[in-house]
């Protein structure tokens, strides 16, 4: 009970602090982005677009045309050419006026500081606005729709990859720490430099070897075209497409992870209480579980969580290389089309995810580490 209250208080303080950082971070992004007037430009463009959309409606257009014509005629313009010109001018001035009104309602006439606050509110409430050039697969221009339809694919691929990588690292690392100095251990040390290359880089080689040369796996995409109808076959097909990206990530990230975990566990097993447990004849299985893994769980989980969230971000190029239809590829598209709202939207989403991870990690620490939970040192 005492622990729970402490935990709750600790967590609320952390949430407040991380929340504040999140707000400041997004605010900074807005200010930096708007220093060149970019966001204002984007919003003005969008407003003009809405106004012009209204004009697309033929009924409305004919109504406006009629009233303009009436007005022009009322002013005594009769001659055909001049009348046409007058009507066009009148309609344009309506568009300008309408835009001005809308801009005032959006607050664009207000000083920058105030406007930045409005944008901040929008970003924080995930009202991310509309894309300038790219569409979602369902044809929507809402940034939110574009992001939300792509995020699951990214999460699917990279969470799977990371879980596989994490468990490989952990268990190979643990096994090697038991066999310090053996051939496998030396092999692990020798292979570690392989991890100085990122996953997408190995991806290129994987495509070259397994897709183009050996033709064992598909080089691109998430499902075959046309996709299988049976849901099981569909899942299998997706899995088949996931093999190459996951293997490239394994080559890129497992060697260093194994090296670090092995060193970490080796150093940790010299802790006095691990040594003393060995002296007591605690079986090595129990030592590994209760005396090595359990106390080191908080840092291990931290590294996993940061790796996971980092992978969603670092996935941009891997997705592009493998043409995996996730957020990363959409991001690539947005860069190529210079679609600022999408880029800013993705930054906001990631900022949220990162902040949530930081808080979640504090929570995990609180739950797993009695020193935080019960209080002490």
């Amino acid at each position, binding site marked *: 009970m005492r622990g729970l209250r402490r935990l709750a208080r600790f967590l609320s303080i952390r949430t407040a602090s991380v929340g504040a950082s999140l707000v400041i971070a997004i605010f900074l992004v807005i200010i930096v982005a708007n220093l060149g007037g970019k966001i204002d430009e984007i919003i003005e463009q969008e407003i003009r677009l809405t106004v012009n959309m209204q004009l697309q409606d033929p009924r409305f257009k004919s109504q406006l045309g009629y009233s303009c014509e009436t007005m022009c005629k009322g002013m005594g313009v009769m001659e055909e050419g001049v009348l046409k010109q007058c009507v066009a001018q009148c309609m344009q001035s309506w568009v300008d006026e309408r835009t001005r009104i809308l801009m005032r309602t959006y607050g664009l006439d207000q000083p920058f500081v105030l406007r930045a606050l409005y944008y901040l509110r929008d970003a924080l409430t995930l009202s991310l606005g509309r894309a300038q050039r790219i569409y979602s697969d369902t044809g929507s221009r809402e940034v939110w729709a574009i992001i939300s339809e792509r995020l699951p694919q990214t999460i699917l691929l990279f969470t799977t990859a990371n879980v596989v990588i994490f468990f490989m690292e952990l268990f190979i690392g643990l096994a090697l720490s038991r066999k310090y100095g053996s051939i496998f251990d030396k092999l692990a040390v020798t292979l570690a430099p392989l991890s100085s290359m990122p996953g997408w880089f190995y991806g290129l080689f994987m495509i070259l070897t397994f897709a183009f040369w050996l033709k064992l796996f598909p080089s691109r995409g998430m499902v075959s075209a046309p996709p299988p109808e049976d849901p099981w076959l569909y899942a299998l097909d997706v899995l088949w497409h996931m093999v190459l990206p996951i293997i490239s990530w394994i080559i890129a990230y497992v060697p260093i992870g194994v090296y670090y975990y092995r060193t970490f566990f080796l150093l940790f097993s010299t802790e006095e209480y691990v*040594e003393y*447990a*060995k*002296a007591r004849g605690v079986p090595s299985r*129990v030592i590994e579980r209760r005396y090595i893994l*359990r106390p080191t769980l908080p840092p291990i989980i931290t590294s996993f969580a940061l790796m996971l969230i980092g992978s969603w971000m670092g996935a941009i190029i891997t997705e592009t290389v493998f043409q995996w239809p996730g957020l990363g590829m959409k991001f690539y598209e947005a860069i190529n089309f210079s679609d600022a709202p999408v880029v800013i939207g993705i930054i906001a989403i990631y900022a949220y995810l990162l902040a949530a991870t930081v808080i979640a990690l504090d929570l995990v620490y609180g739950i797993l580490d*009695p*020193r935080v939970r*019960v209080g002490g040192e």
Partner: protein
Amino acid sequence: MSEVLKVSDLKLYYSTMSGVVKAVEGATFTLNEEETIALIGESGCGKTSLARALIRFLPRNVAELSGSVVIDGIETINMSDAEFDEKIRWRKITYVSQAAINSLNPVIKVVDHLIEPLVIHFKTPKKDAVAKAAEIIKRVGIPEDFLWRYPFELSGGMKQRVVIALSLITNPRVVILDEPTSALDVMTQANILNMLKELKDESKLSYIFITHDIAVSSELADKVAVMYAGWIVELGPAEKVYVDPMHPYSKGLLGSVPRLKGNTPVTFIPGTPPSLINPPKGCRFRPRCKYAMPMCEQEPPVVKTGQGEYVRCWLYAGK
């Protein structure tokens, strides 16, 4: 009185990058039931290595371990690790670690530490084990509700008591106490020493008491083994070693203890202990010894001075 431990000619070498470390050489002593032997000497003299060799709690780089260690009538030196774990470790002999402050797993509760040896070595049902833990923790003077706390909620003295409880819970014959009080305040130290005295009588325990503090060693020791550079240079009953030591090193060591009572001047032994990789030829104490003779360049004999007593010095050869 029956013999619970008999060590003869124990040898322990480590291999390191700079050469072979001769940590223990030719250690011989016996320990009877309800008896305490104190291993005293300066740091690095091999006392901890000797004690750890008895319970096979050694680093990976052991180069040689030979001689004879008979615990409760069982020769253990040639046992496999598995057999040792099954028959000896924590059943016959237990170990109280030097750094009790860090010897407990910070993320599991006191009770989980205490029941672990019972569950592992005796397959005791958990309920009975917890009852036993509650009993033992009261015996070491800690309230029962501390069972459910984490180690970091305990003071240094309490942690030391928990570690002692942990080494008593399986009713061993021999307990190795490796500097059990050196990190504690004098008052707590006295408290724990009192408790150890009581426990010894209650449970018919034998202690191997390792300390660098000679004054403290006299609180428990029936027998004293003085160690220098991997050798036991003198072994004898407390009455003799504390009052009238024979070996020049023992004399020097005792002379360097500042005393509260009386006005005995203190002295010191000049020089530093030798490296165990390249110890001096002959007597290892020779370079620092004020009685050194030419003969000391030969390895000194083990001179028996009584039942289970000896001194390793040329001064007493032939007497």
